[in-house]
Structures are given as structure tokens and as C-alpha cells.
């Protein structure tokens, strides 16, 4: 093995195994029905896929619109290096959401019905339309990486010319569907626990998405640093680490003011066992990261920033599970715990995305993009990159190298 080649921490072999492990339940799902591979029931029609793949997945992909907006609309050139990886992660995240829905939906072959039959009163309809459109926007926002690699100048020029309207459109779409995921839960005032149910839930969803987007960018780029060695400058990481606590602080403030205004602040102490879930999500996702990131020593250390970001991501996932599963009583008298096959499918999809990210970093100018100074420059591929015609043999070499 050459010295420069790095092995992926878990090994592409393990990722491949996880992909296959996820495929088997998927096949059973299509041949035997949803009941055969899940613990879902009439009393618990939504479970792990909705909480993890839809609710958590969409929020964690918020790095796409937050970073693209920050770099291209707020013109913060300093963060240019993270914009492209953020868009890639977001694009794959949204693709995962759609793939998971193809398993969870009762009739996934009719998913196109949402484009033809519209119920404009439904928050989930709005989420569906925005997610479909936004995935397309993300693909277009990411396409320069592919066009640069293939040296297709005309498509590159076209995309660059519409880049700003595209980013604005992406921010608008994201604002709408990130908040509408919260609006969906407004439909359940009697079954969502009062510690979470509030008319401002859509706003809380949007703010928490804005906080976790950059945190997920930190998380993902730290992991890819370990694999590919392209280090993000501490300046950039530190900048993200400085800004996120303010958003978290606003989120926490709104939550507390809202609970107090509705006279429910006492539930934080009395509503057992849901208050434990509430404290868990607040402590892990907001209080602890705010405290940690207030120390300059932590803000200036890579591991300090990484672990703070991990806490924020974990807290966000905890919150999304709380509002869509753990604190949503749906129909009393029914219990639910995910079937291992439900989890296997989701893990398989995440392994799919990880493999695609790995391939993308190997074949496309993503990390090397940090050398570009401005989005208007048409950048030729790095001299170190093989020419576009060599793409096929290069993929073949990669596959050989994995010993799959």
C-alpha cells in the first residue's frame, strides 16, 4: 500500500457489509409488507424511520443552506472551504431521507402523487414539495464540483451564473420545510407532551436546525480530516464554534420564555418521566455546549470543538426523537421499540452515504476547493488530479484497492 493512501477508519469492507445488511430487510419489506420487518402498529404508525431518517436527517442536513447562505449571501469568504463539503453532506442527507421514505411509505411507487395531488393545508405536503425541490437545488449547487472534475466549461459557467439565486432559493426552501417539520407536530396538541407542544414549535425547529447545521459541518469535516488528511483551518472551525452558541442561546431562551408564558414551566420539574427526556435534550444539546464553547481554550482546540459539535448533534437527534416518538403519545396503550430490521435499514442507508462521500472526496475536487478564492473564478482541476478521461480506470483502481 502506498504511503499516501489512507484507510477509512471502519474500512470500506465493513461499510459494504452494513449496506448489504440493510438491503435484506428492504427486500422483505417489498415482498412481505411493513408489518414483517418493523414493530410499527396501528397505535404506533410512525417509528424509527420517521424519527431518525426524516426528522433528524433533515435537520442534520441543514449545514447545506446555513453554510451556503453564510458564504455566498453574507459574503463571508473565510468559510469558503467548508461550503462545498457542507453542500455535499446536505445533498446526500436529503437523498437518504427520500430513500428511507421509499421504505417507510405504504405505497412508495406512488410517491409522485405528491407532485400531482396537492393538499396545500397539510404541513407534510409542504415538507414533501420543499424536500423534493431542495434536493434538486442541492444537486445543482454541488454540480460545479463534478463539472470542474470533468472540465465541462459551459455547464460550469451556466451554474455559476445562477449560483446566487440558487442559494437564495435554497435558503427560502430550507426555512419553509425545516419549520414545517415542526408545524406537522402542531396537528397533535393532545398527544404531544406540553413540555414540547407550543405554537412556536416551527420557529424552534428552524432555529435548532440553524444551530446544528454548522455543528454537523464541524463533525463531518473532522471525521474526513482523519481519513483524507485535509485539515480545515482552526480559524474556520473556531469561527463556527464561536457563532453556534449564540443560536443555541436564542433557542434555549425562546423555549424557556415560551414554557413560562404558557404557565408550563413547572412541568420541567413535575412531569415525570418526560421531564427527564426534556432535561436530557437541553443539557446535552444546548447547556453543555454553550458552557464548553464559552472557554477560549476549548474553542481553540480541535478536539474541544469536535466534541462540543458532537454534543449539539446528539442533543438535536434526542430532541427530534422526543417530539416524534418518545413524548408523542399517539394512541395510549401502545408501546413501541424499533425492530432490529428497522435500524438495519437506516444504518445501511447511512453506510451508503458514507461510501458515496468517500468516493466523492477521492474523485472530485471537494477539499482541494479550499484553494479557490472566489466563487466567480473558473477553477481548473488540480495538477495532481488525473485528467477526466482517466476517471474510469481510476474508479477501477479504487474498487481493486478495497478488496471487496
Amino acid at each position: 500500500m502506498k504511503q499516501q493512501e489512507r484507510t477509512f477508519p471502519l474500512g470500506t469492507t465493513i461499510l459494504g457489509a452494513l449496506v448489504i445488511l440493510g438491503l435484506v430487510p428492504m427486500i422483505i419489506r417489498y415482498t412481505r409488507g411493513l408489518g414483517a420487518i418493523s414493530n410499527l402498529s396501528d397505535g404506533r404508525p410512525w417509528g424509527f424511520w420517521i424519527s431518525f431518517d426524516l426528522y433528524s436527517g433533515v435537520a442534520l442536513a441543514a449545514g447545506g443552506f446555513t453554510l451556503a447562505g453564510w458564504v455566498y449571501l453574507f459574503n463571508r469568504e473565510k468559510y469558503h472551504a467548508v461550503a462545498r463539503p457542507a453542500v455535499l453532506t446536505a445533498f446526500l442527507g436529503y437523498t437518504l431521507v427520500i430513500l428511507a421514505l421509499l421504505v417507510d411509505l405504504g405505497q412508495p411507487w406512488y410517491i409522485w402523487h405528491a407532485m400531482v395531488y396537492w393538499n396545500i393545508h397539510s404541513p407534510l405536503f409542504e415538507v414533501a414539495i420543499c424536500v423534493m425541490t431542495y434536493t434538486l437545488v442541492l444537486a445543482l449547487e454541488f454540480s460545479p464540483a463534478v463539472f470542474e472534475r470533468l472540465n465541462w466549461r459551459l455547464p460550469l459557467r451556466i451554474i455559476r451564473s445562477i449560483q446566487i439565486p440558487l442559494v437564495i432559493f435554497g435558503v427560502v426552501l430550507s426555512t419553509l420545510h425545516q419549520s414545517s417539520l415542526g408545524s406537522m407536530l402542531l396537528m397533535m396538541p393532545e398527544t404531544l407532551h406540553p413540555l414540547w407542544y407550543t405554537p412556536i414549535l416551527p420557529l424552534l425547529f428552524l432555529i435548532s436546525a440553524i444551530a446544528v447545521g454548522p455543528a454537523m459541518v464541524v463533525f463531518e469535516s473532522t471525521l474526513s480530516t482523519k481519513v483524507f488528511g485535509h485539515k480545515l483551518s482552526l480559524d474556520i472551525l473556531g469561527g463556527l464554534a464561536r457563532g453556534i452558541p449564540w443560536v443555541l442561546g436564542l433557542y434555549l431562551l425562546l423555549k424557556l420564555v415560551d414554557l413560562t408564558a404558557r404557565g408550563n414551566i413547572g412541568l420541567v420539574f413535575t412531569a415525570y418521566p418526560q421531564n427527564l427526556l426534556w432535561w436530557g435534550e437541553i443539557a446535552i444539546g444546548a447547556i453543555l455546549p454553550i458552557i464548553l464553547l464559552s472557554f477560549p481554550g476549548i474553542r481553540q482546540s480541535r478536539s474541544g470543538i469536535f466534541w462540543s459539535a458532537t454534543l449539539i448533534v446528539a442533543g438535536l437527534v434526542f430532541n427530534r426523537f422526543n417530539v416524534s416518538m418518545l413524548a408523542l403519545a399517539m394512541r395510549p396503550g401502545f408501546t413501541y421499540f424499533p425492530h432490529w430490521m428497522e435500524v438495519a435499514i437506516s444504518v445501511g442507508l447511512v453506510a451508503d452515504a458514507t461510501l458515496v462521500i468517500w468516493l466523492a472526496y477521492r474523485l472530485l475536487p471537494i477539499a482541494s476547493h479550499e484553494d479557490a478564492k472566489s466563487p466567480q473564478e473558473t477553477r481548473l482541476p488540480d495538477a495532481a488530479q488525473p485528467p477526466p478521461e482517466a476517471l474510469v480506470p481510476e474508479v477501477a483502481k479504487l474498487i481493486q484497492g478495497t478488496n471487496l
Partner: protein
Amino acid sequence: MTISRKEFLKLSGLGVGAAVALSLLPGRLARAAGGELLAQGAPANARAVLYDGTICIGCRSCERACKQVNGLPPDEAHPETLTAYTFTRIRTARPEGGRPVYVKLQCMHCVHPACAEACIVGALKKTPEGPVTYDSGKCIGCRYCMVACPFGVPNFQWDNTLPWVAKCTFCTDLQAKGLEPACVAACPVHALKFGAREELLAAAKQRIAAEPARYVDHIYGESEVGGTSWVYLSAVPFEELGFKPHMTQPVTINAARAMGLVPPALIGVAATMTGIYWLTKGEKSSKHAKDAGEKEEGGETK
């Protein structure tokens, strides 16, 4: 176009002020959207059913008639809940260990159905005649209706590779022919009365007034979640029948308000983002000009 830092701050201040002022607007728009929802009442002659729990003897003729009319398979056991293959069910309640009391369960065909509001593709619809209908031609099986329904009515065919949502249809086919729903026609003791909602509510009030000792003084479904088409009279408190109390507003009220905010949010965010890009672009190009100027003077800039 260049813009000095001072001008930038001034404009930002103006922007913040405008945002604060505009933030009052969403509240008014939201309340307007909610008001629209509440203003839609039930049409005067919408069909409804009055179920008198003091008359019902629990014979389950209604269950059998429903199964027959809809071509549903028989139950192996007698579960206490509705299923995708059982659209109506007689539940046996034993309040305080006393005599059994029966109550009929089925879709409530709400005046403001949460399922119809939730359904992405509009497969569930509230018809002016009263029934909330389900169109399997549109359904994609997302099951949001099941999560949204405050009565936990719609159910799903978990064992089917082509699964549908299923619930009581209010026998729209029979109603279209001028007939009563199958369960109403089958009841041997006439515990079920089919008619216009307003008339049935009046009749229910008359029954309570005529025999106050016989009934709990409440018509369940008159105002629960904004009113339902199936209204109930009972001898025992409804909680003991497993009928939990509900808010009087439709459960969809806050979601309707939130959706009312979507168009202004769309315009507002698009305008704000465009404005921010325009403002900060000016600052960026003036910074570039400054850097270029410094470089020309010789000596490296950091």
C-alpha cells in the same frame, strides 16, 4: 457600489426595525388563517348519527352488517379496537365493576377532520354531505392521518404488500341511494338515529331534558374538536367508556395558523436574503479594492 461601515450599520438598524415591525404582521396573518378555519362550520343539512348508549344492548348486529356491506373478513378474536379490517366495534366497558355498558366505536366523521387536513395528497376529504371519505387512488401510505386523528381511528394494512389505510366510510354508497348506513339499518333496538346534524343535536337535548336521570348531561361530539358527525348520549360519564375529553377547537387550529404564514415567510426570507447579499457584496468589493490598493503600494499585506 461601495458602502461604508457606518452606512452598513445604519441600514442594518433600519432592517432590524423593519423586521420588528413586520414581526407583528405574522401574528395577524396567522390568526386570520386560523379564523378562516373556525368560520367553516358544518353545512346545516350535513348527515350525522346519534348513538344512544342507554338503548344499545351490545348485540353487535352493527358490526356484522358493516363487515358484510364492506366485504371485510371476520375477526378471529374480538379486539377492543378498530383495525384495518374492522370499521366499527362495540366496546364493553365495566364502570366501577358494575353492569357492562356498551359503546359503539367508528370514525367520528369530524366537522374539521384532522386526517383530511393532514393528508399530503388529499386522499381524505370532508364532503359537504357529512362523511369523511378516503380515496385509495391518491393515498401513498404515509400514515400521517393515523398520527393526527385525535380519536385514533384510521388503521393500516400492515400485512399487505400493497397496504391501504382503512376506516368507516359512513356508507356513502348507500347514502347516495337515499338509504341509511348499514349499521343504523341493522340495529334491532334503534340505538342509532340517522339524520341532519342540527336535528339530531336538538333531539339529543330533548332526550336529556325529558329524562335527566337517565343521561349524563353532555352530548359527546357536539363540540369536541370542533364537533363530530357521530354524537353520543350515555348513562355513565364518558371517561368510563374510554372516551377522553377533547379540546373544543379543532386540533388543526395551530397547524392552520402556521400554514397561513407560509406565503409571507417565503416572500420575507427571499427579500431579506437578497437584501443581505446586495449589502454585503458592496462591502466585500470595497475590501477587495482596498487590498488591491495596498498591494500596489508595494509591500505584502498579511
